[in-house]
């Protein structure tokens, strides 16, 4: 079943064309790694899906509902309804620094879903356990390591029970050891059949966990396929060049 369909996405900032023509689709249960050189438009593409950026043209359909059709956005309520099916994890975590870990998880859930404190607490405790931070429930984000913050951010996104999780370079701000603990949580999610779209520079994660790779370059998808196809037998010259320069130290 197709969860997301993207066709002919275009986006520019001032005079720079960031996305020239992006089309792809996401099936239920897919774990898609979006890779490519800096400035390829990976993050912008992800941000367009959840309406943090507005596209200039193209179509985005999520679970059969049109977020933007041929450059024209649906009305506000529908857009909100569509984006609520997705959760997002940022490179810079974006936890609420003035709230405890518990409240970071429960506050949005209670506000958005109108849930009771008891239900929110119960769900928060189970999710925070799932990301391995049961002991940290009542601490403040400032006392956590980067890896712990990102795991809290993942749990916070999961509170709202999204069908699709978007990850925007979730480990780029972390050192290798902390990266591993975040990637482990993401692998766990993948094993639970969460549909995931991950913008990443972690080639091992892309190769071992993803079932599909999107290689982006110059604002378009230069190549897509299974990790085997893209890593071992790249068809596009730019893909081959990218691995030629990056596989030595990253793969």
């Amino acid at each position, binding site marked *: 079943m197709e969860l997301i369909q993207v066709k002919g996405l275009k986006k520019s900032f001032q005079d720079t064309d960031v996305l020239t023509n992006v089309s792809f689709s996401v099936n239920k249960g897919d774990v898609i790694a979006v890779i490519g050189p800096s400035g390829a438009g990976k993050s912008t593409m992800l941000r367009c899906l959840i309406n943090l950026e507005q596209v200039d043209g193209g179509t985005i359909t999520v679970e059969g509902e049109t977020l933007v059709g041929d450059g024209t956005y649906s009305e506000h309520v529908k857009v909100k309804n569509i984006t609520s099916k997705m959760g997002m994890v940022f490179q810079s975590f*974006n936890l609420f620094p003035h709230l405890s870990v518990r409240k970071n998880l429960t506050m949005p859930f209670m506000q958005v879903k109108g849930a009771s404190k008891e239900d929110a607490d119960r769900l928060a405790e189970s999710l925070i356990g799932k990301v391995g931070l049961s002991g940290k429930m009542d601490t403040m984000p400032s006392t956590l390591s980067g890896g712990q913050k990102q795991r809290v951010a993942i749990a916070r996104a999961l509170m*709202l029970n999204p069908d699709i999780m978007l990850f925007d370079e979730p480990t780029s701000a972390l050192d290798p050891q902390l990266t591993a603990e975040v990637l482990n949580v993401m692998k766990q999610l993948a094993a639970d059949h969460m549909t995931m779209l991950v913008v990443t520079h972690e080639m091992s994660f892309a190769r071992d966990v993803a079932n599909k790779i999107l290689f982006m370059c110059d604002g378009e998808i230069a190549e897509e396929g299974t990790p085997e196809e893209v890593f071992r037998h790249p068809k596009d010259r730019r893909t081959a060049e990218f691995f030629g320069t990056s596989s030595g130290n990253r793969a």
Partner: protein
Amino acid sequence: MNWSDIVTTTAALMQGFGVVMMLFAVTLAAAMPLGFFLTLLTRSRFAPLRWLTNGYIYLMRATPLMLQLFFIYFGMPLVSDFFKRLFFSAIVCAMVGFVLNYAAYFAEIFRGGLLSIDKGQYEACQVLGLNKFQTTVRVILPQMFRVALPSITNESITLVKDTALVFAISVPEILHYAKVAVSRTGTVFPYMIAFVIYLIVNTLLQLFFNWLEKKTSY
């Protein structure tokens, strides 16, 4: 000056102290929300509203508070009978003047606090599905207030001292009673008692805000 003089003088000054505290409380309670409202107006999508608000803030900050008080108390009643009745009482004029003036300063303080909040906070709120009101009340305001707190402390201490200005529009505050007592006793002690009262108030205020800063730090 003997002990009974000190007791009578202090008692008289405490009457002025009551007026000062009332002016202080009313100004803080009204100028802070009004200031935040002005901050929101300076971020309005409607340009004339932004210009008007910025112009107001500029006017209030670029002219003496004393002049503003004179304008309201002595000037406005000359404009029409309506203002004559509205601005009849000196204490009412003092409160109106202080609230209007301090709101402009608080607007600037809050603007700085808002600027310090990372764009990622708004984005996190959006992807979690919080609406504008929830975002403002649950996420932005608490952080803005925390960043602005040291400036709010500073402004509050200035406010306590600024209340002495209403002496000039004949509101019977601490200075008024001190001056009367100095003439009556022919000594400098009433002024010294006034010093002590201001010192005690601002020390307590500082301690309170220190406690608040510690309590709200994250």
